[in-house]
């Protein structure tokens, strides 16, 4: 599989703290790549650099061969890079439907129109509802995001990212805070999306990653210390020693 998205020798420091050091990653088209590592290892910073929140100090980021290093989030989003957040980042005071609607490219295209009503537009409503249906939230479309259950909010996070019709989807700890039941439902959702869309998932839950990922990269101390298929990683002495690859 050809790489859709590549990071080449990324460096990032905050003050005198080096957070990413010589990180190279490559995400093949259509695949699901897992990223794991302990807290504070630099996983989320890595996502932030890959999706445009921070520019790297050195290194290159490429999307489908095009250099996108240091582009701001809105440009990345328009090029087809979407992400969800570890701590939830929704538009809390509007309905689940409007959350999704806001992320639709069709809505973005008419963002500067200021006379016709937005929320009653049947085309936008239909498109938003189709996305909600994909994540199993259609029945809850009219509920204000703040009033959804925790698990539903997690699913809505993904729906908002999906609504942008991305070429690549970055999920930052999608199961964070979920119970066994919610975790199973979210795993099923990710499994459904796998193959339809290229995904990169940061995850603490090893069972989740080892079951779903094609390849996994392990980040520790801001470096990629191991990378390979789940099977290869299970056998990797580095991973075994750092107690990261052990299944619970």
């Amino acid at each position: 599989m050809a790489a859709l998205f590549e990071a080449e020798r990324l460096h990032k420091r905050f003050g005198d703290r080096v957070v990413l050091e010589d990180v190279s990653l490559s995400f093949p088209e259509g695949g699901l790549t897992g990223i794991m590592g302990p807290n504070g290892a630099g996983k989320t910073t890595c996502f932030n650099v890959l999706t445009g929140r921070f520019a790297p100090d050195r290194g290159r980021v490429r999307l489908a061969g095009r250099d996108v290093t240091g582009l701001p989030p809105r440009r990345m989003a328009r090029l087809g890079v979407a992400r969800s957040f570890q701590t939830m980042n929704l538009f809390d005071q509007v309905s689940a439907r409007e959350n999704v609607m806001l992320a639709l490219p069709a809505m973005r295209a008419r963002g500067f129109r200021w006379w016709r009503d937005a929320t009653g537009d049947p085309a936008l409503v239909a498109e938003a509802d189709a996305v909600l249906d994909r994540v199993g939230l259609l029945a809850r479309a009219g509920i204000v995001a703040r009033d959804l259950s925790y698990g539903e909010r997690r699913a809505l996070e993904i729906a908002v990212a999906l609504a942008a019709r991305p070429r690549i989807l970055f999920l930052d700890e999608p199961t964070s805070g979920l119970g066994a039941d919610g975790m199973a439902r979210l795993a099923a959702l990710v499994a459904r999306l796998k193959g339809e869309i290229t995904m990169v998932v940061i995850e603490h839950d090893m069972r989740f990653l080892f079951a779903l990922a094609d390849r996994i990269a392990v980040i520790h101390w801001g470096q990629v210390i191991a990378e390979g298929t789940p099977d290869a990683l299970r056998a990797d002495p580095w991973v075994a020693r750092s107690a990261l690859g052990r299944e619970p």
Partner: protein
Amino acid sequence: MVPRPVPLVTPGMLALFAVLATVPFWIARVGLYPYLGVEIVIWATYALAYNLTLGRTGLPSFGHGAYFGIGAYAFGLAQLHLWPSLWFCLAAALLAATVAGAAVGLFISHRRGIYYAFMTIAFGQVFWFVAVKSHALTGGEDGLLKIRRLPVELGFATVPLDGNDALYWFALVAFALVAVLLWRLVHSPFGRVLNAIRQNELRAAFVGYHVWAYKLLAFAVSAGLSGLAGALFAMAQTSAFPDVMSLHWSGIVVMMTLVGGGLVSFWGPVVGVVLFFVARDVLGAVTASWMLWFGLMFMAVVMFRPEGVAGAWQAWRARRAAASRAALASAAGD
């Protein structure tokens, strides 16, 4: 289940405009006076325009008096030095305030929260200072005097606005137009994006919106419409003074907006303006320290009902709806 489109003009809005149109016929009978109506309608226009930044986009602008004042001066200067036509002078006020708002927006739209607030105050003070000091242009503290209430030229007829009743109806038409415009705007895609930015600027950027440009535009539109209100105010006072541009008066429009409930309701700012002016006249007739009582009311609102009068009204209606649903359910159970 599927949301219905928001109507262009709601029946409630038409009713409000109709009731307001009758004010000159009874305001004197309830012990008040026609000029109060003029003030209320002009400041209601200003507060609605202001709330596009604070309530809608979540931009804490604390120096908005600058744009209200710029509109007033632009109206006066255009009339005294360029062309004494009502439409031209109103357009000049709208344009001057929009340009000033856009220029300031260029410098502040990448900020948020307290930094944004401080920069709006700093720019507001700059404009106020210029108005006070540039004697030759604005008349300084003495004000720009001899501004006329220009007649409305409609081509087929000319309507004089010298009387307070005539000016009231003209200001009411302006208020209605601004209200309908802003009502459309907040329900349009543009307005929904502003609302999204208020709730979560980071996420708005990550779904692809140019947050900076939206904040800049919202600020410029709000400043421009505030300037239009300022032009009407210059007509009402037949002069323009720097004090409305001061930090003090910029704070008062914030207070009106918050007391009325601008954070949760489109009409909240209007409620706040009515409360403020009626309090000034009714409390002011009893005690010279009426501002103390209004200030205490403001503090009570912030402490106990941060959503303001409109928020309290919404909560009361929600409770009633829940109670009647419960009553229905128990009746069905019997």
